[in-house]
């Protein structure tokens, strides 16, 4: 498994506890996915068209994205031919390997936050409505304060009813200061917040924004404006712009990634709600077609339900029970 080994080492191993937590969240996902793959192997001892067809169904059900799935199957077929793989059980490892290659390509993917060298590090959160932006900010703030950082939250969603109160409540919960302003436009709250962050030496600033559908031109322009304001107050900021995507999202995720990428420089994705039955496979299609990697995953509604994304765990975790259930 040449490619696989090579990339394996690029990822930093997490603590055991973290790995376990991640796996608990993914368990439902993994069971269905892997047991299906096992059934497939048991059913077909030869690799024929009906094998590929069923594999295609499994991948499509995981929302991996039609184009990516087609491309994946083609590559798999090529490899089966080249390496003269004859029976289905030998193919399982290759499947994992090829999925890995689709995600990683030949890049080095860094999942760490890009901290600013001097002055506060600014992280902007964007995404469509209801995906989990505000909650993710709460969770990340908790993680960072636990690491001893001085974190400031800015309530940049001045549109949705109750949005400011929601972030303020998260601020209380994780002991972070929150800058908010009623009946203001987002740019002006953000201005105030960033000034405060500079003057009072905060390490990290997390900015919430209103959910917006990517086809709304006015709202997307507003985001552009927000970005410019940030860059003006703190040159080089935002240091990270994270696009939050709900794991239940289907093919529209690709459109989300493309449109937000056009307006802001998205540096990573947060994949939320992976504790449900959704597989979030659209992130593989997004990486494949738009090139944005996943940085974090959300595994629940509590403050400690955020994990650093690890593609190896994500894919390999999906398949690792393959041999057990035989």
């Amino acid at each position, binding site marked *: 498994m040449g490619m696989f080994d090579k990339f394996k080492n690029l990822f930093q191993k997490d603590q055991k506890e973290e790995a376990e937590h991640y796996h608990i969240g993914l368990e*439902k996902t993994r069971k269905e996915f892997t047991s299906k793959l096992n059934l497939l192997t048991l059913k077909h001892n030869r690799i024929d068209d009906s094998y590929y067809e069923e594999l295609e*169904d499994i991948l*499509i*059900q*995981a*929302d991996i994205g*039609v*184009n990516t799935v087609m491309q994946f199957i083609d590559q798999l077929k090529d490899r089966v031919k080249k390496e003269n793989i004859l029976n289905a059980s030998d193919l399982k490892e290759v499947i994992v390997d090829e999925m890995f290659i689709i995600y990683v390509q030949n890049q080095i993917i860094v999942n760490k936050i890009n901290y600013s060298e001097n002055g506060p590090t600014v992280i902007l959160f964007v995404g*469509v*409505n*209801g*995906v*989990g932006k505000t909650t993710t900010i*709460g969770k990340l703030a908790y993680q960072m304060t636990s690491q001893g950082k001085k974190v400031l939250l800015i309530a940049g969603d001045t*549109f*949705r*009813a*109750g*949005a400011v*109160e*929601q972030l*303020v*409540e*998260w601020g209380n*919960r994780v002991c972070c200061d929150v800058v908010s302003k009623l009946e203001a436009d987002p740019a002006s709250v953000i201005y105030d917040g960033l000034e405060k962050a500079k003057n009072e030496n905060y390490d990290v600033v997390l900015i919430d924004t209103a959910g917006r*559908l*990517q*086809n*709304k031109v006015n709202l997307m322009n507003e985001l552009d404006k927000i970005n410019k304001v940030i860059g003006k107050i703190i040159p080089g900021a935002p240091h990270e712009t994270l696009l939050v995507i*709900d*794991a*239940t*999202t*289907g*093919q*529209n*995720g690709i*459109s989300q990634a*493309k449109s937000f990428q056009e307006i802001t420089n998205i540096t990573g994705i947060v994949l939320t*709600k992976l*504790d*449900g*039955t*959704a*597989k979030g496979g*659209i992130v593989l299609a997004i990486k494949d077609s738009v090139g944005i990697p996943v940085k974090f995953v959300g595994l629940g*509604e509590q403050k400690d339900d955020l994990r650093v994304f690890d593609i190896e765990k994500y894919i390999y975790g999906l398949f690792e029970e393959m041999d057990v259930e035989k």
Partner: protein
Amino acid sequence: MFENLGERLQNVMSKIKGYGKITEENISEMTREIRLALLEADVNYKVVKEFIENVKQKSLGEEVAKSLKPGEMFVKIVKDELVDLLGGEKQDLNVIGNPATLMLVGLQGSGKTTTIAKLANLLRKKYKKKPLLVACDVYRPAAIDQLKQLGRELNIPVYEEGKEDPVSIATHAITYAKQNGYDYVLIDTAGRLHVDEELMQELKNMNQAIHPQEVLLVIDSMTGQDAIHVIEGFHSSLQLTGAVLTKLDGDTRGGAALSIRHLTHVPIKFIGVSEKMDGLEEFYPERMATRILGMGDLMSIVEKAEQVIDEESAIKAAKKMQKGNFDLEDFLEQLNQIKKLGPLENIIKMLPGASKLGLNKVQINPKDMAHLEAIIQSMTKEERKDPFIIKASRKIRIAKGSGRSVEEVNRLLKQFDQMKVMMKQFKNGKMKMPF
């Protein structure tokens, strides 16, 4: 972006025209395109299989073989089949009861709170009766605040008891509604995963305690293949009476609708189309079918156009178009009609083939419209009837007369040509042209 099905089918159809008849081979070529388009629309993969089989069967029938336009006939089969799966007729809410109670449930972030406020607003408008909103999301931070703010905005009272037990809040709310003469009780519940046993049990208890007339599942229209698990999960615990499909003002195709309707027979009753409080509409299967297929929401365009456009002139124009002798004179007249339609970009984007012609990104400025008018008005009757005769010297004259540049005159003529191409695509449909 992906080519949409409308465009894909047009390609295959023109091929079939070349063959002159429909064969098993070109049917499987077409069904392959449809399969991809449906999967890209997030239609459940099992439904896609079944659907393709049905379409194949029907297309190989005699009717299609005999038809003069097998390609068009095929498209019609596809659309009818889809409308069928979406549940032909629209279904109304059951709001009889004293008071009638409605419970909204769903995953986190699907849009329950916004939807319930919109629904209260819609019911009050439609039936002229008194709704009461009830805040039973005691888990998400500030969820109660959110509902209270919406209630204040709409001037609809909100019943709340803070973060108490949701089942008893719901029960108290009904007593309160009876005592105070409310006609509808609308209960907002916390978002939850369908696999969260504890929280699902809470909903079951609430259901048993209050016996609501309607239990509506609120589901995000951007949901992918997981939709079926979500719907089945909620349906098996709560016997849903309907569903609301939210965020359809986005650019999702909304194939999840098929999973709801076809796999569980739960009717979709409403769709959410904006963040504003009037952004809830009744569900029309026909329109949803066109949307899933990506053939442009023709029905909506036609309807919208009909409301404002002078019928007769539209029909006249449509007829001329069909004969292929639509000229600049007609264009001018329709330009005037279009001005009444509102933002033109929205209309153009919905047209089939628009993205292929690069028209989906156009921004149309009312000023530009005025310039177009000026240019056409500077043409002679003869020129308007037959733009082909407009050559260099005429162009210079027209430019001078209208105060625009020759370049702009050229652009208009080119655009008019493109428009004719687009019109051809409408030629055989039964719909009227909006311009």
